[in-house]
């Protein structure tokens, strides 16, 4: 029974990796830089998901710590791009 759960979690991780490969199309083609940043953000979140699923499937709880650090670094990437390209003179309200 436990083996079924492990196999299902590994399969889920593999499917998440496949969907991130789909998102790579938007990162390569995306008309603006912001589309690319959103795509990279989604891929980073998917990697967090893969790490969490593999932590259970391979029975290595230390991967949860790696997932926490990866989530925070992913947030820093998006926030730095968003803040440094912000143009206050371009907003009227």
């Amino acid at each position, binding site marked *: 029974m436990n083996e079924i759960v492990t196999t*299902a979690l590994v399969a*889920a991780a593999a499917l998440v990796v496949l969907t991130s490969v789909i998102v790579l199309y938007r990162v390569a083609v995306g008309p603006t830089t*912001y589309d690319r940043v*959103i795509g990279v953000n*989604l891929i980073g979140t998917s990697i967090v*998901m893969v790490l969490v699923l593999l932590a259970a499937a391979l029975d290595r709880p230390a991967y949860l710590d790696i*997932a*926490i650090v990866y*989530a925070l670094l992913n947030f820093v990437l998006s926030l730095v791009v968003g803040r440094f390209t912000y143009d206050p003179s371009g907003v009227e309200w």
Partner: protein
Amino acid sequence: MILSAVIILLAAIGVFFTFVAAVGVLRLPDVYSRSHAVTKADTLGVGCSILAVALYFGTASEVFRAIVLLLFVYYTNPTAAHAITRSAYSRGVDIWTTEEGPNQ
């Protein structure tokens, strides 16, 4: 047995919502709607996966770390999406509208 079924079901829901986010990023017309798809669907996908893993481990240490990770993801994903879309709006990225224009 029931626990295994719940774990597999939660992981499947997580994979489904990640797929929805990927399709939204591919097919929606502009930056703002793509950001909408990513934030909603991917936050829910990660939440379901983390719940599945917390149920799988079941020990206090791993459940605590999973909850901390869940709180981080729920707090940081909308913040990052808001920062990116606000920057895009301030740089004049076009908003997708219908033929007649907005508000009609």
